[in-house]
């Protein structure tokens, strides 16, 4: 996990996704090939840090490592450039987490490898 995460830490910390050099479409997570025009000329690009909730859920049955957080919100966020990010939504009152809500990115602890392993950081969003 530590090395897998290290490799893409700029994606986790700064939302570095990809932009199609041919048609300008932008993606997060990054893609190898543009879904709009089929080009494989994709360049890394930092995504905007604000967007809106397209849809969301509140998860009650966690994956291992997320037990302490339940229940917590997961949302599909459409960023200002149209890229779509699956993310946790934290530090937001229940009534604020809804479809269409404006959100902004932050960096949080995403996963902790036990008492002695590494702390993996990554993006989460907050209702703005």
């Amino acid at each position: 996990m530590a090395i897998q995460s290290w490799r893409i830490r700029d994606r986790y910390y700064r939302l570095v996704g990809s932009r199609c050099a041919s048609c300008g479409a932008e993606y997060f997570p990054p893609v190898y090939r543009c879904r709009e025009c089929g080009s494989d000329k994709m360049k890394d690009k930092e995504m905007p840090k604000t967007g809106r909730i397209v849809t969301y859920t509140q998860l009650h049955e966690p994956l291992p490592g997320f037990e302490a957080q339940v229940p917590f919100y997961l949302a599909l966020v459409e960023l200002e450039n149209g890229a779509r990010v699956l993310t946790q939504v934290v530090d937001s009152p229940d009534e604020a987490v809804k479809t269409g809500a404006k959100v902004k990115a932050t960096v949080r602890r995403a996963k902790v490898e036990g008492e002695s392993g590494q702390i993996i950081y990554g993006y989460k969003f907050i209702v703005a």
Partner: protein
Amino acid sequence: MARSKAYVASVGFTKVGDHWEKSLLDLAVEAGSSALKGAPKAKPDVLIVGNMFSAVGASQEHLGAMVAGALGLTGIPAFKVEAACASGASAFNVACSLVKSGSVGSALVVGVEKMRDLEPEEASQALAMAESAEYTQFVGASFAALNGLLARYYMESEGVSRDELSSIPVIDHANGVTAEHAQFRKAITADVVSRSSMVADPLRLFDCAPVGDGAAAALILGDPKAGAGKKLVGVLGGAVSTNEFSVYERKDMLDFRATRDAFGSAMSQAGLSLPKLGALEVHDAFSVVGALSLEAMGLSKRGEGCRDAKAGKFDLRSDMPINTFGGLKARGHPVGATGVYQIAEAFLQLTDAAGKNQVDRPDYVATHNIGGVDTTAAVHVFGRAS
């Protein structure tokens, strides 16, 4: 000497549920030997095992040779095919292709999954491996969470109510009552679904297929004469299709493109139109997935899948019965085996061996198995072999 046909000569399966006393291999052998006994003279030329997470669930890989050896088939080529929850039907699809190509005369397909040895969160983790480790598992999104997101999106964009969403699980449970191999054999009402515990809002426990152990097998022949006079079922069409990997990466999340394409292709290979189908086994791992699949296959208009189900359009005694033995919700969903269970159930329907679950003399039955959220869809169409 290319053959162009494939037939299911026999099937075998275990009950789905808790098999505390049986290992992954025990289950695979039980289903496999049962299928082989159905056609004792036909020895398979190849074994294809459908399985999703034996590595995690049982610390076991190399299932092909292991199951072959345990079935007394040492010597034949044997492989595992993995396509998440679509592993079973994908294994069947590969086996059929080998038979139809003429490179083998017969093939045994065994779908198997051992899920109950895992604690609930470990099972969730194993299922989540169908989705991106880097961007889906990383944020703590389980497979149920993705489907929860999808369900809310579906309900909000298509105006589907909680009660309507509950209608497909209700059908499954009604059909499971008389299905001896089903994990749950108790009828439920929509109220039971909407009052069950919350899993991934708006999805509740009864919107979600259970975790269970199970194995199912099918013996495929290229030459109907090798079946030695037994009732055979023809594989009239079969297709596997894929969609953009994660549901949230798709322009239209409600378009189950892989299902639509695989179903269209399989039906056109069979030369069939929808009204000809006598039954459909649909992959409803979550209520919302069942609805969107029915819509993608054209059984319902967009947004109408749940409402049609509620109106009785898919009941066992309707023109288009679905999930005749309880579907994923009641028969159960031992993931890598599910697709083969569906095929075994189609076989039972087309050989008039479905007992209390028999639909009224169907000529054609289709099975629909998916991996991920319509990420891989494998559809097969079967007919009576005269």
